Structures are given as C-alpha cells and as structure tokens.
C-alpha cells in the first residue's frame, strides 16, 4: 500500500521540479544562432571542398600534374589535365575537375600532394540550381576568381 502513496508524493514532487526547471529555461536567454543574420565563422582546419593554391606573384597554381591526388582518392573524383610547359621543364596544369558530389572530404589528396598545391577551402554553404556545378567543379576557374577578387 505504501508504494501507492510514495508514488503520489514522489511523483508529484518530481513533476513539480520538472515544471520549475522548464520555467527557469523559459526565462533564460536564447541560445540559438539566427543563421541568415549571424553567420558562423569556420575553424582554421575546417574541410570545405579542396582548392588549388596559387603562388603569390603569378597566381598560377603550384600544381605540376604529378597525378598523386587522383591515385590517392578513394572515390576517384579528381580528373587532371596538363601540357608541356613552354620553358621545356615540367608540366603546367590546364584542367582540374573535382567531382564534389562523390568527394568524402577524407583529405588523402591534400596529404599526398608534395608540392603544396592543394588545400581545403573554408566555404561551407555552396549552393547552386544545377547539379553539374558540383559534378564538374573546375578548380582552375575558382583560383582565377580568387586571384581576380584579391587584386
């Protein structure tokens, strides 16, 4: 029989403490971040899509088309094209297509690059109406845009 009474007393008390807690929460300030108005800042190591690094003066990519990153990529999303450099030595990058719809941001390509030509960008909100913008993401074009807006 006392289980009957302890249920009532203990239960009633626990219900009231529950209400008290939510009341206190009701009057405490808002915790959420109002996204379109307050934009979050990404940490330095944040992994956005991979992007080419251009050296400071000429703005040309450091990439020498060695083909390490397409081999390292588990879901082979990188297609590379390069041509002989006029100055005779080494190769120059002409096309660097990243299939961002298959990329799992694992970072194996950035690790495998010995010429400091690839890094993670920090933009998280890529939006487009057309899937092809992501399947054939042209990193060369993005690098030129970066250089243009840097000037």
């Amino acid at each position, binding site marked *: 029989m006392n289980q009957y009474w302890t*249920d009532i007393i*203990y*239960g009633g008390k*626990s*219900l009231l*403490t*529950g209400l008290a*807690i*939510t009341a206190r*929460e009701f009057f405490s300030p808002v*915790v959420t971040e109002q996204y379109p108005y307050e934009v979050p800042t990404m*940490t330095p*190591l*944040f*992994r956005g899509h991979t992007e080419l690094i251009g050296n400071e003066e000429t703005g040309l990519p450091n990439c020498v088309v060695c083909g390490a990153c397409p081999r*390292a990529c*588990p879901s082979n999303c990188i297609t590379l094209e390069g041509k002989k450099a006029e100055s005779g030595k080494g190769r120059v990058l002409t096309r660097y297509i990243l299939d961002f719809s298959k990329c*799992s*941001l*694992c*970072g*194996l390509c950035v*690790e495998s690059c010995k010429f400091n030509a690839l890094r*993670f960008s920090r933009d998280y909100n890529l939006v487009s109406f057309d899937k092809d913008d992501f399947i054939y993401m042209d990193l060369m074009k993005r690098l030129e845009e970066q250089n243009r807006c840097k000037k």
Partner: protein
Amino acid sequence: MSVPLHLRSDEVFVLNLGPQHPATHGVLRVKLTMDGEYIVKAEPVLGYIHRMHEKMAEDGIFAQFMPNTARMDYLHALAFNHGWALVVEKAAGIEVPERAEYIRVITVELNRIASHLLWWAAFLLDLGGFTPLLYAFDDREKIIDLLERVTGSRLTYCYMRFGGVLNDIDDEFITGTRDFIKRLRSRLPRQYHDLVTHNIILIKRIKDIGFVSAEQCRRYGATGPVARGSGINYDVRKNEPYSVYPEFDFDIPVFPEGDSMARYMVRMHEIEQSMRIIEQALDKLPAGPVMGKAPRQLKPDAGYYYSAVETARGLLGHRLVCDGDKNPYKLKLRSPTFSNLSLFGEVAEGMLLADALAFMGSLDLVIPEIDR
C-alpha cells in the same frame, strides 16, 4: 508485463513498423504481427541502407578505407576510425607515438559523450518529451565545435592515420574541453537528471520494460551498454585493454536489473566516466610528435588479424585477413548493434507497441552500422 497470448488467428494483423517511421531512427523495418496492441511476433528486416563496405575495403588500399569507417556509425565515427587504425597497425607492426595515443583517447571519449547525448535526446523523443532534445543538442554542439577545430569535420571524421593522427591539438582545444566538462558537470544534475531521470512519468515508462537476462545477452552476443545493463561486467577498454586506456582509472557502470531503466542509467554514468578519462588524459598529455613513421606502401604480411574497440554501442571487431598484397584480402566488420538488435525479436514478444518502442530506444540503434 507480457500477457500470455492466445493466437486468435482471425484477429491478428501485420503492422509494418516501416522503413520510414519516426521511432526507428533510420531505415529499419520491423514486421510486427499484432493482436490488438500486443506484439505476437516481431521480425526486424534489414538491408535498406546496405552499401557493402566490406567489398569497398577489398578494392582500395588500406588508407582508402578510412573514410568508409566514419560512414558506418556516424555517431561514434572516431571509434570506428580507431578500430580500423588499430587492426592495420597490428598487421603492419606500426608504432604510434605516445602523444598521438593520448589525442586518440581524448577525441574518442569526446565523441562517445556526443553519441550518448544524441542517444538520450532521441530516446526521450521516442517517449514523447521534446524539450530534452534541445538541451542535449545544446551541449553536443559544444563537443562538435571542439572536434571540428582539431579534425576538420563535424560528424564523419577521417582524422586518424596508421601511426598517429593528422593534426595536433592546440591550447584552445584543451581550454575549450575543460570548459565544456565544467559546463556539462553543472548541467547534468539539473537539465538531465532532475528534469528527466527522476521524473515519475519516465520511470513508469521504462522501468521493468524490455527485460534482457545476462544469459540472453551471452547467447545473442549483445555487448556494450545493453550487456552492462543486464549485469555483465564487460568493457573492451578494461577486459582487453588497447591504446593507453590502462593508464587511466575509470570504472565501468554495471546495473543488474536488465530493464530499459538499467540501460539508461549505464549510459548516463558512462558520460561521467568519459569525462573523468578526458580530464586525466588532458593532465597527463605528453609532448612529442603526433605521427609515427609509417611506410608509404603498406604491405602487411599474410595472416588473420583481429582488433576490438569499445564504441558507444558495444564491441566493434575488425577481422582482417591479409595475403601480403597492398589491398586487404578480406575484412569482416563485427558491428555491435547487429547483435544487440538480434535479441529484439525474442524480447519484444507479448509487449505493447509503446513498450516495444521504448525498448528499441533503449537499445540505441544506429541503422547504417547494422546494414554496413
């Protein structure tokens, strides 16, 4: 509270707790043969999110499977990274520097707390309480920001490499972790225990529901909080110590009752134990490199290797068969929830629908880990 069921064949109907149902947390389908609101037979149907990770492992070289591990149990992805790194280091005999081991333990334990917080939120959502979800996610966001600072991603981490970890942790991460632990310690008694654990409605809802005996756990191979909720004192970090776990003193919460309340209390205590481990690891963090020397082309010599890791849901085993080639010859992933769910059919018989969902919530299912 299971009522003896006489199978009145004319009144039995089949209810599909369908692949798309709010309480299954993923695409699990349970074929329930119901008599009124009592479950006569429950048969989980799997495979709706099966991606054949084991074949992917055989295609790529060892390093290329690391991103896959995070896609199996995305709530405790770092433990899966750790399991895969351990088995390959065992096979190839790679040394891991001391500091990297400590960083691995810190990040895995932080990830375990985040996983338990999300389980707690989803479990309360199944039982009808909406507000606790927001409080738990408030804390979980702090952990996700910390882990984003050091690993770069927020949910599916690809942070560990054979022989160490990718990036070192900086002071801001350490002070952030200590603040987080202080904040969670102050919130646990109020927002978690007073609001929910001692609430009479919750106690009535999960006490003496879904009783699983220790013998049932052993015969079905259930491990982790499900086994520890039935009185089995088994935790891979203690019974089969790996990495630097022996250097920390933490205890394993074991509750003998075996009902959903016991499993609930096991996970709540595990959050506190993980915080203890993180604090000790932060105090004893040695200096030094975070990446040992690992051969570029990994070719472990032939043989059968096995590594076990304690994830938030139980024992995760990697059975790796190598034949000396640069690809794994065969990889079997023994996922904990696969065995934990296999006892659902036997325990859910005679239960009410509402109790069966409370019981399923207490099993803490992550469906991509079951289907692999």
